[in-house]
């Protein structure tokens, strides 16, 4: 069994109470209406005073003062975890003050009660009653998702108090480092000798901790949670390595090993040291990397726990049998193990755990048929987790949510299961009942079900599935981000990057992009580097850092985008020492692999060298040959302006015309520019230019480049007042663009002065914009 200092203390005081609270069967909220309102009924009986205390603490509580109360609680014990009456007497006044500061910390109230008993203080009864009330609230306030959402606590000591009060034997405890980044879930497996059941309780202090640090800017971003957890487990590894937190750090260290072989070895050691999660992680690693042939070792790590009949170990062993990992496939043995796990956990939770693992394997998991029949039967008997899994499996198999499945999911949704609310909401949206669907999705999202938050955020942001509403989208995206959705974080980062002039926006953009980048999201890392390139104040990086990021991504993650950007910086000397040769070699590698963007970038680089412009044109021709619109547009541009050394206006126009027919806006704009600013009267055609721009404008009055062209076209037709008006608007828009150079802005202003004086703008090829 895992050792933990606090767990050696005496137990059993409130066994009856915890047993009453630990019933894991959710209340069924009734049938009838398919709206989500009835789902809230389950929480109606919550102690409103404690709910208010929690709200007040999370909104206004002083972080340092609250955690000082836990430090005090520790001082009230001997090293063996026994209550120290002398310390209790000495700190009697401090305890009273602490109980006023921290009204909801079960660990503190439990310690205060123990102290009162030890010192025969008359407050013992009142403190016990408060502790009981907090305990009842903790269980009643749980999201009804069969333990998927943890019980909110403030500190590990609170969970410890619950376990001690339960009087049940602690079988194992571990931090789940993988499934839910919003929380740092502490799983505690208890043995209830009276009912012969294994109970799994899940606690989280991370979310409360983050909320209490609301004054820290960094706490707005998910990465803060990661850093808190990292620091917590690293501290634990130093002071108490044989605790769940200490083992969590050991698993972190194992996973950080450079090779899978080393990871496997490190996990084996940690598992052997007494950590169930390490054994489970090893099973996962060996299943996902079958070429490692480490299934046998994984079973060896798991066996000591399975031999003690711990349900998670039995289930994972069943997985090994069903997947023939480390042992021959044996469905009969797998079923026997699942039966035993079901018996220990009750309500088919062994098979539910197994099925949940099978969903991680994707649509065609071979594990599912092994439990389908029993779970279907359980679902028919109103076992909601089973119903959700059956529905999920069917959806994964391409079946729409209909009939009995739909009814069961609705029942589960009404009973408060966020996963069911999400499934049902999506089904409603698919059936064209977007409003009803959205209501269910919002319920699930409100319960911090990350997929629902992601769906809502992205739908509202993009307008796909729901009417676009960015203001509503951003909070959902943020909550999804805190739930670990890197895409949501990146979206938020990019959103705030758009207004890079604002220090606040830059800070937000950086925070979200850093959080996503910390999860290894490539898009976010590239966007973060791009942000750093601006070198704006308040950022953690500059162009030099950007170059370093691009280099790392290019070398370690083989990113062609990163190579192109790195090459761009090398070419310009921004943030790095100028090195066109290195830039060319970076681009050449990808160009030779037919990466079109790299071919175009290489062409651009070669155009800068008068002796190699021909090579540049060849790369551009190659890029265009596949029909890529961007490449063809670039080719037309190069041909028009003679970037290869020799202009070919006819072919340029021919390419632009083709692209314009394909509604390519950039090409249309460029073509219109050519029509309206050229010196060749046979080409000059202001009316056609205006028509081209009208075709692509699509109501976008804010496109400065198109306005600049439009002004030139009006001038070509002789309508200088319209030209001046459009140019004035374009100048205003360009003025707000930090990336537009001063030289360019001067030219925009020059054109405005020409139009106001009734003159056309004629572009001389070779000196153009």
């Amino acid at each position, binding site marked *: 069994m895992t050792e933990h200092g606090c767990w050696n203390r005496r137990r059993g005081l409130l066994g009856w109470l915890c047993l009453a609270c630990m019933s894991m069967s959710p209340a069924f909220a009734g049938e009838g209406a398919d709206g989500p309102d009835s789902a809230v009924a389950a929480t109606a009986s919550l102690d409103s005073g404690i709910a208010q205390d929690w709200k007040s603490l999370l909104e206004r509580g002083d972080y340092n003062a609250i955690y000082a109360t836990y430090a005090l609680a520790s001082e009230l014990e001997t090293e063996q975890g026994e209550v120290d009456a002398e310390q209790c007497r000495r700190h009697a006044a401090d305890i009273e003050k602490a109980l006023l500061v921290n009204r909801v910390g079960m660990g503190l109230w439990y310690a205060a009660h123990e102290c009162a008993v030890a010192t025969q203080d008359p407050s013992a009864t009142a403190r016990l009653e408060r502790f009981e009330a907090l305990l009842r609230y903790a269980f009643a306030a749980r999201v009804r998702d069969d333990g998927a959402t943890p019980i909110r606590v403030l500190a590990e000591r609170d969970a410890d108090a619950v376990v001690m009060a339960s009087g049940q034997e602690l079988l194992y405890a571990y931090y789940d480092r993988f499934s839910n980044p919003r929380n740092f879930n502490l799983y505690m497996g208890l043995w209830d000798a009276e009912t012969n059941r294994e109970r799994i309780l899940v606690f989280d202090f991370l979310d409360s901790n983050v909320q209490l640090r609301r004054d820290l800017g960094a706490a707005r971003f998910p990465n803060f949670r990661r850093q808190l957890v990292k620091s917590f487990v690293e501290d634990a590894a130093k002071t108490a390595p044989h605790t769940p937190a200490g083992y969590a750090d050991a698993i972190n260290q194992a996973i950080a090993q450079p090779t899978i072989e080393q990871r496997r070895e490190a996990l084996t050691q940690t598992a*052997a040291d007494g950590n169930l999660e390490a054994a489970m992680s090893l099973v996962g690693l060996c299943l996902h990397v079958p070429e490692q042939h480490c299934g*046998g070792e994984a*079973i*060896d790590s798991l*066996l*000591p726990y399975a031999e003690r009949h711990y349900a998670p170990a039995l289930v994972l062993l069943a997985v090994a049998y069903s997947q023939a990992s480390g042992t021959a496939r044996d469905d009969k043995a797998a079923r*026997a193990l699942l039966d035993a796990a079901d018996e220990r956990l009750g309500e088919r939770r062994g098979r539910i755990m197994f099925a949940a693992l099978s969903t991680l394997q994707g649509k065609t998991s071979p594990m599912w048929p092994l439990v389908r029949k029993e779970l279907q039967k359980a679902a028919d008997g109103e076992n909601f987790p089973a119903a959700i899994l059956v529905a999920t499996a069917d959806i994964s198999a391409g079946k729409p949510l209909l009939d009995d499945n739909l009814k069961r999911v609705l029942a589960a949704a009404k009973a408060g299961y966020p996963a069911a609310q999400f499934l049902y909401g999506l089904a409603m949206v698919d059936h064209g009942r977007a409003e009803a669907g959205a209501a269910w999705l919002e319920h699930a999202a409100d319960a911090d079900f990350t997929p629902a938050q992601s769906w809502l955020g992205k739908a509202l942001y993009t307008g796909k599935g729901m009417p676009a509403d960015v203001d509503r989208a951003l909070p959902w995206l943020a909550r999804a981000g805190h739930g670990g959705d890197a895409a949501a974080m990146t979206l938020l980062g990019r959103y705030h990057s758009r207004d890079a002039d604002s220090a606040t926006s830059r800070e937000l953009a950086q925070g979200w992009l850093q959080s996503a980048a910390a999860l290894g999201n490539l898009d976010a890392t590239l966007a973060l580097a791009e942000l750093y390139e601006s070198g704006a104040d308040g950022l953690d990086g500059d162009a030099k850092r950007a170059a370093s990021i691009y280099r790392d991504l290019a070398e370690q993650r083989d990113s062609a985008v990163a190579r192109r950007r790195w090459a761009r910086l090398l070419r310009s000397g921004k943030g790095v020492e100028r090195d066109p040769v290195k830039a060319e070699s970076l681009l050449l590698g990808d160009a030779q692999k037919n990466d079109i963007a790299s071919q175009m970038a290489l062409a651009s680089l070669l155009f800068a060298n008068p002796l190699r412009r021909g090579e540049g044109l060849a790369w551009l021709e190659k890029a265009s040959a596949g029909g890529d619109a961007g490449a063809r547009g670039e080719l037309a541009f190069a041909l028009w302006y003679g970037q290869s050394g020799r202009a070919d206006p006819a072919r340029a126009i021919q390419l632009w015309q083709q692209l314009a027919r394909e509604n390519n806006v950039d090409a249309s704009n460029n073509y219109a520019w050519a029509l309206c600013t050229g010196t060749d009267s046979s080409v000059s055609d202001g009316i056609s230019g205006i028509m081209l721009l009208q075709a692509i404008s699509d109501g976008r009055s804010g496109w400065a480049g198109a306005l600049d062209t439009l002004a030139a076209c009006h001038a070509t037709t002789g309508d200088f007042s319209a030209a001046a008006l459009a140019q004035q608007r374009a100048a205003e828009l360009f003025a707000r663009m930090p990336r537009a150079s001063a030289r360019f802005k001067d030219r925009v202003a020059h054109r405005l002065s020409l139009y106001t004086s009734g003159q056309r703008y004629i572009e001389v090829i070779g000196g153009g914009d």
Partner: protein
Amino acid sequence: MHFLRCRAIARGALMSLAVVLLLTAFHPQALAETYRRGEFAFEVAAAPAWVRVSDVATKWDPSAPGAQGSSWRNWLLDSQFARFGGRRWRYFDRASEAISPELLSEAGKFEVEFNPEFQRLIIHELAVRRDGHWLDRLNPEHVTLARRESEFERDMSTGSVSAMIVLDDLRLGDVVRARFSIDGENPIMAGLDSDGSPFAWNSPLLQRQMRVLFDPAAKPAEFRAAPIAPASVTKTPEYLEWRYAAHFVAAINDEDNAPIWYRTHPQVVVSEKRSWGDVARWARSLYPPPAPLPDDLLQRIEQWRQLPDVEKRVAAALRTVQEEVRYFGIEIGDNTHRPAEPAAVWTQRHGDCKDKSRLLVAILAAMDIEAYPAMVNANRGKAIAELPPSADAFDHVIVQVRAKSGIWWLDPTRTQQRGRAAAQETSDFGVALPVAADTTGLVAVARNPDFTDRTSVSERFEPDADGATATLSVRSEYVGAAANRARYDLQRNGNDEVSRHYADFYRRRYSEVDVAAALQVEDEAERNRLVVTERYRLAKPWTLNTGSERALDLTADTIANSVALPATLDRHMPLALAFPAENTHRFELKMPAGWRWKGESTKRELVDPAAAYTYRAGVDGDVVFSEESYAARQASVGADRVAEHLRWRREVREQTFQRWIVALPSAVADQARKTRLNDLVRGVMDGNKANKDKKHD
């Protein structure tokens, strides 16, 4: 562990915290009343006129240490010593308060030791201050006197008597005050004694005074620890007064494993000015030339004379005095410092340190080997060199041999020592005062030139064919002092008891252990080398037995014990090391065919100025091995370096715990796993069926 068992002589100079209630005597007062308890008596009387009774503060100053957080407070500690007009008289006044209810019983219990042969105990006052009022709690009928027997455990009879007083009805908040005197000093000291007191306690002290009254013409000498303020000196026609005072003294936290010479508590010791030569002259008067030795001893001496060299003759004589003359001291009156005649000691076959030392010197003299008794302090070591020279600075006597090849120091109270004279073990006495005509001062006591203390342990594990069980063979080789200790253990407890003890040691590590062969002992006296071999069958040697792997946990306890962390880690005092000491510990695991060690060959050297440690591990043929060695380089680590040294110890300790993991051949691993899986699934199926049947019922 060997005891230094000859506690002699002094009581006053190095007054320990445990005997703070020893007080000096005063002349009987007019109102003195004597109370008899059998053959012993004590008196109740007022303090003598020369005593200046101090006032106890009415409240504990909030700025003083102990205002909060202390479990015990000393309101007043006052020692007054009269050394004028021929007096040797010690007055003591202590007022203290237990803050914790757990200490109330201690606060109400007093034990005062005195020697009725030449001392009187006079009780002046026993009172309790409750709610600001002093209550007289002295009831002479409740004072008991008893012969002090505790020294019998150390084979000594001292003649001391303990007065025991137990206070009833003591409550939290009570301040208990006790004032006593002890009048008289052992006349054998011839006035060459000293007086002294500590100036800090293990609990906070509000007010401290030490007052010493010398003859008016005396020239006092003092030792005064740095933090104590110099004495204020006043002179009256009757006496010269030196008075030391301190207020608000913080508690001293005792730190374990400090070198014996380190003074943990600041102290003042005073006496009249004299030299160590004066003390040596006094000692010589106690060691006159011996009377003729008995015939049987002379015959033995004649036999030893035939031995080839002086070293062997000395070793033979030493061993005889150590092991044929039992240690027992009757330290009463003159006997506290005057040794018995060697002939009598030999005849009665018992004696204390001075008796045995004088006997050995007499035997060596009979063989024309120059040797002298030498007085040392076993509890304070070289620290006595700082004190004013006095006869009570010593508590033990050893022998100095002046051989042509050098000086050897021998301790005849020890036993089970073997080997050559130049390799004999003595404690860290630091300095000695030889009882020789040419002695003018203390001389350094160096360790004997060939002295060693070396332990080498080898543990070899040989797994059986099935890889589940193993045989463990242990070979321990002890040389020098280590051999003395091992021999003493074997002699005192017997091989069977030691064998059981050793087997239990391995049972704690490997749970199921059977003794496969009886303990074998090979004792090579000439080289003082002792080898012990053990052999065990280990049913469950593996910490980890996963089917594919086995893990063996190993602890080089020989090394780990040498680098054990002291109880106090945040230290301000130096740390003593066993020195010299060399230990090596080797582990071997013989690998069955196909087994593969998953570790890597490693070499590591961890060096500290005070000690060195090396580790190496690797594979030699089919044997995995590790070898660790430790060697002390200094006898102590200064307080300024202790933190760094302890970091080194932690690093070494971490290395001394090893887990060897070996991979089994895949066929063995697969079979083991298959067996366990089958057992598990079968058990699970049986359980499932039983559950099903139960439900049907």
